[in-house]
């Protein structure tokens, strides 16, 4: 009998433990008293430097400074881009969220729609230093037009067309001012027999592809969503814009078909930095990878991504970059606002601009990401005057995945010897449009 009760007691204990284990997950890691004293914020940072460890090294002294100034500790986690969106989704769904998080600014309107983030209304905006300190186009990416943004700009980025000065000089070429000049130059610098190509494209990356779908369509004067947020993917401007970009590999043959397997921008940047190709179109954070490969900033030039000679519009980039958001359910709202204020402070921005190769998001700040004054001025000009935000609608994330993946598939078809006609582009975009419509 004694043995039996012992076993029973053990069983009950085991039950209790398993119950406690499921109950235990309720207390999140973002805890920390709301009453002054020892406050700890949890901060999820995106990967901006050359590696996750590099990000940690760069951010740690900055966060220490914040702790010294305010007494608020910051628990940092750097998250790679492949995981960040899923981690944020999971955080929203479970309510187990950090206090402050970095987001790709193109997700801003989609994330705003989840209602999980703190709106920077008048009071919150004042607490972080007022909206007037930001570059207006950068702040416009913070959420849907006409609403209080749920994110504020942190690092600014823009696309530019990088070209290898020595290769251009050797071929007697001038930096291109129009799309046609760019293609002509790329053709001259292409020699498939020697495995030499004019350009490298991240043609297997759906996020890169969709950016070019957007920019090329914008140059044609076409928009991807109408005023009511309904997708309008199949217009002539969109189809021709997508086809123009695909034709770099298909008709003009200035990109290696292998590029269809380049599933992130770093791969094309490395081709440029190791002098396999003469041109890339990339955001200015390419600088850190270029430098890591040993190419000096004096060896390349940057011009705005050129539009066709008869373009309706000179858009050369989307307003790219990283924004900061605060989770609405934070227990440390005041501390989180202080932290956002600190991160968007001129001092912090100047410290982080160089290692993360980012453009300033503050009105009066000077770019510090490069020692090349000409390059800095070009990017600043693109960011401030030639950039257009990606559609600020809740379905933006679906636009990215459906159109981007459709372009992946079309590049794959071209690379494996097939052809893609304007009608096929239209059909692919129609499918993407249906997918977006079905889930909104």
């Amino acid at each position, binding site marked *: 009998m004694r043995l039996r009760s012992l076993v029973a007691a053990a069983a009950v204990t085991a039950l209790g433990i398993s119950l406690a284990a499921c109950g235990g997950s309720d207390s999140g890691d973002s805890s920390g008293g709301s009453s002054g004293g020892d406050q700890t914020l949890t901060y999820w940072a995106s990967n901006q430097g050359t590696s996750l460890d590099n990000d940690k090294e760069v951010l740690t002294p900055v966060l220490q400074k914040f702790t010294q100034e305010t007494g608020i500790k910051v628990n940092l986690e750097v998250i790679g881009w492949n995981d960040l969106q899923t981690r944020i989704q999971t955080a929203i769904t479970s309510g187990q969220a950090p206090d402050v998080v970095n987001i790709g600014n193109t997700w801003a309107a989609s994330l705003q729609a989840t209602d999980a983030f703190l709106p920077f209304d008048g009071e919150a905006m004042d607490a972080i230093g007022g909206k007037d300190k930001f570059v207006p186009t950068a702040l416009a990416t913070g959420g849907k037009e006409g609403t209080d943004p749920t994110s504020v700009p942190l690092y600014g980025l823009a696309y530019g067309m990088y070209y290898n000065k020595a290769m251009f000089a050797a071929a007697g070429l001038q930096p291109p001012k129009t799309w046609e000049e760019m293609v002509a130059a790329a053709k001259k610098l292409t020699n498939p027999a020697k495995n030499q190509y004019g350009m490298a494209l991240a043609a297997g990356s759906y996020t890169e592809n969709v950016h070019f779908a957007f920019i090329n369509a914008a140059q044609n004067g076409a928009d991807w969503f109408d005023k009511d947020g309904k997708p309008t993917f199949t217009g002539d401007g969109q189809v021709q814009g997508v086809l123009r970009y695909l034709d770099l590999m298909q008709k003009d043959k200035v990109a290696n078909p292998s590029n269809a397997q380049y599933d992130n921008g770093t791969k094309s940047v490395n081709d440029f930095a190791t002098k396999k190709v003469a041109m890339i179109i990339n955001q200015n954070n390419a600088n850190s990878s270029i430098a890591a490969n040993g190419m000096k900033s004096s060896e390349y030039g940057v011009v705005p991504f050129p539009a066709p000679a008869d373009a309706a519009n000179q858009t050369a980039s989307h307003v790219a970059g990283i924004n900061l958001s605060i989770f609405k359910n934070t227990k440390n709202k005041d501390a989180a606002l202080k932290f956002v204020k600190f991160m968007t402070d001129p001092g912090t921005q100047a410290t982080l601009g160089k290692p993360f190769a980012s453009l300033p998001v503050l009105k009066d700040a000077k770019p510090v990401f490069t020692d090349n004054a000409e390059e800095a001025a070009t990017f600043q000009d693109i960011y401030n005057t030639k950039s257009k935000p990606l559609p600020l609608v809740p379905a933006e994330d679906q636009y990215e995945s459906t159109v981007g993946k459709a372009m992946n598939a079309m590049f794959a078809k071209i690379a494996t010897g097939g052809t893609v006609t304007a009608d096929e582009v239209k059909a692919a975009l129609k499918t993407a449009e249906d997918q977006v419509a079905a*889930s909104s």
Partner: protein
Amino acid sequence: MSVATTDAPADAAKPARSRRAGPERRPGLSRWLPYLLLAPAVLLELLIHIIPMLVGIWMSFVKLTKFYIANWSAAPWAGLGNYKVAVDFDNAVGEGLLKSFGVTIAFSLITVALSWTLGMAAAVALQPPFRGRSWVRTLFLVPYALPAYAGILTWNFMLQRDTGIVNHILVDNLGLASDRPFWLLGGNALVSLITVAVWKLWTFAFLTLMAGLQSIPRDVYEAAAVDGAGNLRQWRNITLPSLRPVNLVLVLVLFLWTFSDFNTPYVLFGTAQPPAGDLITFHIYNASFLTWNFGSGAAMSVLLLIFLMIVTGIYLFVTGRRSRRA
């Protein structure tokens, strides 16, 4: 998979029931002891399998899009809406699901057939004792012992067009093709996917069949040899019938695993998956996580569950009837 797990608590409860029928000699706590001992298992089963499954079924009936994931309870009831979209094959979503389903069926059938054939061949070949047999057996088990992600990632490197060793051998060394083929894009993607899946899976078939072979008495073969039966005849008339119970379970398990394989396409293709490698679990993942439409993804999952239950049911019914007749 879920079919097998839902059966578990029912089976586990049986001994308890039969004991209750006996004379009631032990009053008090000891009468409840069996239930207490079972309770942790039942509870964990509920927590890990049953409740998430029920939540998944509930999700498939609501409009759980990004507008509601922060507050699930506010998600509006969608009725059969999610299912309608998933099976409307004129629509892009339904058409995509149907194509993915077709790819998955082809992938599963070929993978299971190849894995079984290879496993059987290796098990039979390694049956007679020879020097170094245990070494070869161990070597064959390496793919099964390797962590799936590491193995598939290595395949991903090997199958790259410019830098992969496959093209290096085929094109540079053997000169079999003038133009480097893509292995992870276009039509070849399915071939690559099947190769990797078979590589990962066949050793399990090998291990299971090898264990099965041990239980066939040696003298049956000797008697057959005396009667003049060749190797093929012995295999067909002795080995296959004797392994029948093993094969019944093995083929079913291989099919269910292959059909719901997620790791292989996910690691092999990353975010740039080609249409030819669009397996259904991966398709559902994309439908849920890329478009943030978890209701629609859940509906597709439930359809998948129903399909697998039907297949399993038919399989068990047909094979069960046949073995009773025999």
